[in-house]
Structures are given as C-alpha cells and as structure tokens.
C-alpha cells in the first residue's frame, strides 16, 4: 500500500478514535470557553489532574473508598424475566446500589480527593434532581470539608427530600433564582460563585460537561462502571464485550462511564437514551441531539438547544436529572461521528418502563434510568444479543413523581 494511503487510513482510524486532544476537544466539541477570572483555576486543574490521578497514593484512596464507602463493585445482574420478555440476554449494571443511590458518587469521591490534593478548603457544586448534590454533600461530610450546593429554586420545590438530605449532611443549599430556576441556572450560579472564590474553592461538576478538563476528568472517574462490566461479563459470558450498552443521557456522566472502555471497541453498540419530554416536537423536550445545534454552554462547545439568536432554550423532562439543554461534548462527538445511537424517550413511556422494571425485576428505577429501559423498545437487536443497561440510579427520590403520575 502506498505511504499516503497508509497515512490516510491511519488518520481515518485516529479520527474515529474517541480520544480527547491536547486542547480538550473531542472532534469538534469541547474546549474551555471560560471568563479569564476562571483561567487560573481551570489551568491548575488541567495541569495537575492527570498526574494526581496517576499516583499510587490517589488510586489507593480512590479505590479504597469506592470499595468500602460506595460499595463497589456493583453487581452486573442478569435480568431473567426482562430477558425473556425481550428475547435477549439483558444485564443490569446496578449503579442504583451505590451508596447515596446512584452513580454520581463515583465522581464526587474522585473529585473530593482531587480537591484535597490541590489544597482546597471549600467545595461548591450544582445539582438538578439533587443526586449530585447529595453525593457531594456526602463526600464533604466524609472529608470534613465546607460544602455549598447551588440548586434551582424550582428544583428545590420538586426535590424536597434531597434538599433535606443535603442539609442533614451539613451542606448549605442555595437557591438559584435566575432563568428557569433549574439545573442550567444552578450551574451558572455555581460558576459565578467560583469566580468570586477562586483560590480556596473547588467546584465539583456533576456531569461530563463544563470547561476542559472537567468532561474528561468526570468520565474517567465514572469509567469504573465499564471497567467492572468488562470483567464481570467475562466471568458470566466468557466475553468482555456485550453487543449493546444502553444508558440514559442528560449531561451524560453515567453513559460516559458505561461507554468509556468501549468507545474504541466498534463491535459494541452504544445506545444513549435522551429525554423527549412531552415529545420532540412539543416544545417541551430535552432531546438535545434532535433539537440541538452546535454552540457554547457552560464553558464547552457542544450540542445545545438554542434559539436562532443563540439564546439557550429551557428544556423539559419529567426527570429532573435529564432536564438539561445540552449534552457533554464527548456525547456530541459520539453523535456527530455516528459512534453512538441516540433514541428519544417520552415522559409517559419512561414512566411505564419504570413500572415495568419494578414488576419484572423488583427494582424501582430512577426516572432518568427508566428512559434507558424504554430504549429496549426503540432499538433493533437480534435474539440472544447480550445487552447491558446501565441502571444508573434508584427510584426512591422519585416517589413523588411516580405518585403524581399515578399510572400503576
């Protein structure tokens, strides 16, 4: 083969590789579009996070806490009745069994150790449904760190139990009262507070969003999910690779964790379930890959829902955790190059899928997670395909929503 062809082929393969470049981009998406006031903080993190994460000391503490505090490894559970119903081998990665009830804590454990190594004294975080806020308040209590959580005033009303959990854990919960008063505005507020307290404060972002290096750092902390799937599936099925992995995507941290070690294993299909809300054409949706276009939100270039004039559109989902107008840049890239299939799941279908899982497997899932369950009805697969669904969280926090919906 001529040299030029080889190099074309190499660059073609490299272009298809899911890997962050030195400027913090996944293909066209990512980067760090931040006010200069945040430059020193982001730079400090960018220069140090890989090196800190690579030290045996960090790994020992991180792995130790994941095991003994979070309760990892989480089971990879063969869902026999669900499998029978769908005619496939369906496994559930039980992130719902993590301490605090969802995968979010994998990241907060990692970031709190990171914050300590960077000499920070104070933690701030944003939260939507409150799961990331609770996971952050939990690790702050564990480490004796001062903790302030920014949460949209509307979310504070609809996620009361999580607000109280954060307060019990000793965190201060501050309402974000601008805009739609939900996750997007809580994120704006947390960034403003970081600008105001740049030296002693670490901002624990809860998803694979925000300026570089956050999307990559959070994905790496969450990558423990796919790391475990690999060896657990090997034990059960004799192969590390399922045919399909399904995860729900708001910002996309659980999906990034479940996909991470499979990004560059092309025979494994990656399926991302977005929230269609009341329907993608209803004007009340959060299906970013359907409705979004390239733009800049919270410090990175990604797909986001916006007006023609570049104003960010308020999303809607029955699930507060998917109620976000963008997606992490890595997911925008997966969509862009066709590496992942994106499906949009409506509120009603997600709720029904939540009930279905409850009754076939005895697991009440978080409503976010229920979107991933419904994706089984929207994708094509062959009989006896091995499908892993990332069961990102449990439904305790959503009881009010289930009750109000009432269709059970």
């Amino acid at each position, binding site marked *: 083969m001529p040299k030029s062809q080889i190099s074309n082929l190499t660059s073609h393969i490299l272009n298809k590789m899911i890997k962050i470049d030195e400027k913090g981009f996944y293909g066209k998406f990512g980067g760090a579009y931040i*006010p200069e006031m945040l430059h020193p903080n982001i730079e400090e993190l960018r220069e140090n996070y890989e090196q800190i994460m690579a030290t045996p000391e960090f790994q020992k503490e991180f792995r130790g806490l994941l095991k003994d505090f979070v309760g990892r490894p989480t089971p990879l559970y063969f869902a026999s009745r669900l499998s029978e119903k769908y005619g496939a081998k369906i496994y559930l990665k039980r992130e719902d069994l993590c301490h605090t009830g969802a995968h979010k804590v994998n990241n907060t454990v990692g970031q709190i150790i990171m914050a300590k190594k960077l000499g920070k004294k104070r933690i701030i975080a944003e939260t939507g449904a409150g799961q990331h806020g609770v996971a952050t308040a939990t690790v702050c209590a564990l480490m004796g760190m001062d903790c302030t959580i920014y949460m949209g005033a509307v979310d504070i009303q609809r996620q009361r139990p999580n607000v109280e959990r954060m307060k019990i854990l000793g965190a201060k919960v501050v309402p974000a009262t601008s805009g739609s008063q939900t996750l997007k505005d809580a994120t704006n507020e947390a960034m*403003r507070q970081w600008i*105001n307290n740049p030296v002693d404060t670490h901002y624990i972002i809860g998803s694979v969003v925000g300026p570089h290096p956050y999307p990559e750092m959070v994905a790496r902390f969450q990558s423990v999910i796919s790391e475990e799937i690999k060896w657990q599936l090997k034990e059960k099925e004799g192969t590390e690779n399922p045919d399909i992995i399904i995860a729900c995507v708001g910002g996309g941290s659980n999906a990034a964790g479940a996909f991470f070690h499979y990004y560059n294993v092309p025979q494994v299909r990656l399926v991302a379930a977005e929230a269609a809300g009341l329907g993608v054409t209803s004007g009340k949706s959060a299906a970013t890959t359907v409705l979004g276009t390239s733009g800049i939100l919270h410090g990175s270039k990604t797909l986001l829902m916006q007006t023609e004039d*570049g104003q960010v559109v308020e999303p809607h989902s029955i699930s507060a955790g998917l109620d976000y107008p963008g997606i992490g840049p890595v997911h925008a890239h997966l969509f862009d190059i066709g590496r992942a299939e994106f499906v949009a799941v409506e509120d009603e279908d997600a709720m029904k899928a939540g009930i279905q899982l409850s009754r076939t497997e005895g697991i009440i899932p978080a409503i976010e997670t229920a979107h991933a369950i419904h994706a089984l009805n929207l994708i094509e697969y062959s009989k006896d395909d091995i499908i892993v669904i990332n069961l990102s969280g449990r439904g305790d926090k959503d009881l009010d929503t289930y009750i109000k919906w009432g269709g059970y």
Partner: protein
Amino acid sequence: MNRIENLFQTKKEQVLSIYFTAGFPKLEDTLPIMQAIESAGADIIEVGVPYSDPIADGPTIQDSNQIALDNGMSLKKLFEQLQDMRQIVSLPVVLMGYLNPIIQYGMEAFCKKCQEIGVDGLILPDLPMQQYLDEFKEIFDRYDLRNTFLISPQTSEKRIREIDTHSNGFIYMVSAHSITGARTGISEEQIAYFQRVEAMNLINPRLIGFGISDSETFTTASKYGNGAIIGSAFIKKIKDSQDLKSDIESYIRSVIH
C-alpha cells in the same frame, strides 16, 4: 483611525467607560441611552449584547439581560437599532457579549456588520485567548475591531504579559475576583493589585472595572489605571428611570465631577 486608539492617544487618564445592556429598560432605549452617555461626557460606550446565561455577571446585569431578551432584543435587532448610530454618536463604541449568540450569527458576518456600522471594539468575556488567536484574531483585524481581554488579581504576571501582547484596544482589569456588581468600594488589597499591574508598564491602556459606582471609586481607580468602567451601578440608575436623559446625565456628571 480606530476611535479607541484615537481616544487613548489624546486622553491618558480619567477615561470613563459606561456599560449598559442593549434593549433595557425598554427595547428602543438603546440609542437614546448612547446619546445621553455621550452628551454627559463619558469617553467610551460599551453596549451589552444580552444573553440567557451570562456566567460572569451578577444579579443586576443578569436581570437586565433577561428583561432585554423578554423585550425582544437580539443581535439582529441590535444591529438594526445601531445601523445609523454614527450620525448621532461619535464616541468609541464597544460591544460586550458572550460568545454563543455571536457564533450563531457567524463571527465573520458579525465583525463585518460591526465595522459597517462603526463599532470599534469587542469584549467577549468567555472567549479565551488561545481560541481568539487560533480562530478569530485574523477576522477581528480584518474589520479593524480592537479586542479587549480581562485580567483579574489571580492572573499571573506571565499571562498578563501574554494578554498585553495580544491586546490592541485596552485591558479590562477586573478589580475584585468577582462577578459584576458584587463589590462596592476599593480595598487595600485591590490597590496593591492595581499597583502591581501598574508597575509592569504594559503596552496597552488599562481600565478598571467591577466595583466602580461613584466619583470616589472612579477617582481612586483612575489613579492606578487610565480610567474605569461602570456597569452595574449604571444599570441600577436607569432601571426605574422616568427621564433617562436627565438621570443619565446627572449620574455621569456626578461621577466625573
């Protein structure tokens, strides 16, 4: 010659720049406010392009952004309003806004339009220096638009030097490490920072922003820089004004008095 360059060649101290949000308090107030700022004796007009998610701004400017958007302001609308501004305004005009609405408009088209209507410079707080150099500098230069970067007390000396090298209008010194409108008055710590930067003998003029609200803070800030920027305090003055022209003129005159 670019009006910003011209200004700093003839006036080296007590330069007053006033920021306001386009389309606030009423959609059609943009031009009358610019006119009043000019007739009151300020030196630079900063026109804020409203955005739904202004992460570097405090509550006062956030609110003005939201109200302006609710009033129907957009970049397209703003350019319509400013189409003939050079018939009534002769001061340097700087547009200040977040990157996303501008990228959606198209950076090239945006810069072209700015030059056509007589805009002199841009302040885009979420445009990082590297992205500017990689993607946009060439376009800015082609349309003779001066670019202003921000620096804060946390900005290292090395980075201030880099910013100075790549700036060609003025440098915007954020006086407290803070979002807009969060501080009032000037602390000793801030003065130490002003002095530190002053001693660096930068190429570009420096305007001090964030926390400037009256004659006293303006005078203090001007001692350590070429002048200062007032934003939130000005927005507060015009928010409930019944007579914009007279309120703006009396406020600005009280500051530069």
